[in-house]
């Protein structure tokens, strides 16, 4: 999985750091703690910048290369921040044969970003995901927790419009 690493400066708060330390302390003695800690760290920060990975490596006393290795291996771990609205287009087989590729291309041209990127204003990010299991509604995309099914590429602008001013 190729990952885009963000060039935006790290903007963690002391509150977030305290939360992360709590998570690390909770899992410190578990075997195989790296993944659960990374998962919870991503919930706290929204993504996993190098600064956070370093704190985890130090806290769990494992080499940073191991943490970085795990963070880059799994597609769920994001190394660049998500937009306020994260749009995720399903490219599973059922959605793909029903035209989700066209939906993704349309989103990409409407927003002016590629998949795995975030718009300059931090409003939208775009991801292509694997099957979310709603194959009955194919093709499917999600905007944060809202699910849009049985889509066509032409519906994209009106859906985006709903979030642009929100």
């Amino acid at each position, binding site marked *: 999985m190729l990952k885009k690493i963000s060039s935006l400066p790290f903007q963690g708060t002391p509150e977030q750091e305290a939360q992360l330390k709590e998570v690390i302390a909770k899992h410190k003695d578990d075997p195989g703690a790296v993944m659960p800690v990374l998962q919870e760290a991503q919930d706290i920060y929204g993504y996993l910048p190098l600064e956070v990975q370093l704190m985890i490596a130090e806290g769990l006393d494992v080499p940073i290369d191991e943490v970085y290795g795990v963070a880059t*291996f799994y597609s769920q771990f994001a190394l660049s921040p998500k937009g306020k609205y994260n749009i995720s287009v399903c*490219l*599973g087989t059922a959605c793909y*044969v029903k035209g989700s590729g066209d939906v993704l291309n349309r989103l990409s041209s409407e927003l002016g970003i590629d998949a795995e990127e975030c718009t300059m204003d931090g409003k939208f990010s775009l991801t292509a995901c694997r099957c979310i299991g709603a194959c009955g509604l194919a093709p499917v995309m999600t905007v944060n927790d809202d699910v849009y099914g049985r889509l066509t590429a032409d519906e994209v602008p009106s859906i985006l419009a709903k979030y642009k001013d929100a």
Partner: protein
Amino acid sequence: MYRSNVLVCGGTGCTSSNSLQIAEKLKEELIKKGLEKEVNVITTGCFGLCALGPIMVVYPEGSFYSMVKVDDIPEIVEEHLNKGRIVTRLLYQETVENDTIKSLNKTAFYEKQKRVALRNCGVIDPEKIDDYIAVDGYAALGKVLTEMTPEEVIQTMLDSGLRGRGGAGFPTGLKWKFARGNDADQKYVCCNADEGDPGAFMDRSVLEGDPHVVLEAMAIAGYAIGASQGYIYVRAEYPIAVKRLQIAIDQAHEYGLLGEDIFGTGFNFDIKIRLGAGAFVCGEETALMTSIEGRRGEPRPRPPFPAVKGLYQKPTTLNNVETYANIPQIILKGADWFASMGTEKSKGTKVFALGGKINHTGLVEVPMGTTLRTIIEEIGGGIPGGKKFKAAQTGGPSGGCIPAEHLDIEIDYDNLLAIGSMMGSGGLIVMDETDCMVDIAKFFLEFTVDESCGKCTPCRIGTKRLLEMLEKITKGQGTLEMLDEMEQLCHYIKANSLCGLGQTAPNPVLSTLHFFRDEYIAHVVDKKCPAGVCKDLLEYTIIKDSCMGCSLCSRKCPVGAISVTDYIPEGKKRPAYEIDHSKCIKCGACMDTCKFKAIIKG
């Protein structure tokens, strides 16, 4: 006692189309009418007929409301639940016959199904352990712990002929026997719920609709092999499943059905959930265990097999969700009952996730040996829009495409392997004449290139080279020699890759090359895509004699490639238009706007 029970589907498909709001609205309306003590609202797991979601069934009548909207609820509550008049207009129309209502089990979708693994999905409330116990839940665990020795349990599994439902079809009893035979201070039972095959969602439905069955079966496996700790490795993308599993584990603890001294027999067993993080390769057994250990989920060479050295280097048995869902019933009803279903070498039933170009998208469970034709044409209700069937894809990225001439194949593990596909976890994607098989092969290769963990060279580099060739072919830069080269490379990757992902990754290419070679030849020799999918090979043309000269297409064209000619077709008033192919970007806007079907692609 309630006089009516309303079952609302709370599976992911229906939840995505607001079924939870429907359940809320129902409760609200019932309170308004003072019916909340008479009518019970239950949120269940998946009914299987996802294409018709959100789904709602009212018992005792068995009225099957489909594609329900929140706005329909007041009418259903007032008419049906208050006055007893079924709102036939909102029912699934196939269940309405003249003035009577047909039972759900008599509809084309359900009639040929045999529900074993899915028996409780859409029937019980998955968040209530009492519901599960009421349908014989945990009776099998009780029987195993109090009446059977571990060896007897393993023998029952062997006699039943149950084979792993995750893909490879290894006999479950044998797996358990190997793990039992290795002495160790600690052993583990794992559940593979990392359903990564795009297009398969049966494991998710079992976890969402019947989570206790997995816990019970894991405890049985723990008793059989001598393990006291279980792990469920479940995709983080399945939040509803994760939540219901955790509720189920907590409830089982409360009832003493997990934890220490279960049923007072001195048997201890506990289960932890581990979340996957989106890596397809983690469905491979050794990669999954490495991932539970918190590392990069890379597979390792076997032997040693997990039964000898698995999780944390201890003997481990790993089974798939659907496999577990069969086990309690095999214990209760006996190995002979299970072995009476299916074919000679594949016993029992199999759940398929029907998707793609099919009317009844959803989950179907049929006895092994059911023909593909029955599944697609009868249960699946055929292909929408009167299009022609082209191929069925089974086994996901590890499987192959089955053409129309093999529609009568009796589906089981061995028959599918014989025609170059595989059972896999049971994804079944139907494709029609508008799907390009080269494009489909390319789609799966994109997936495997993306998901290859990179540990071994044949898979990491081989799949990449394969994909590059496929890309050239879809762009019209392919040659006939390239097809042979591809085939050779496929066999090389299969023979030399470390794990199942690489060993099966070329299957989509091999099977389409075998069954749809003419489509590849059309791409490389004629530089045409017969299905009209590969954009670089398409050409849009205006049939001048059908053109009415309305100019709509030329106004819609984003690059100004359409201009008027001086040719006036016979019987028409205005001159026809034509497309300048050197300017055309093949967006298809002209074809979509033409009201006279005068524009064709090909």
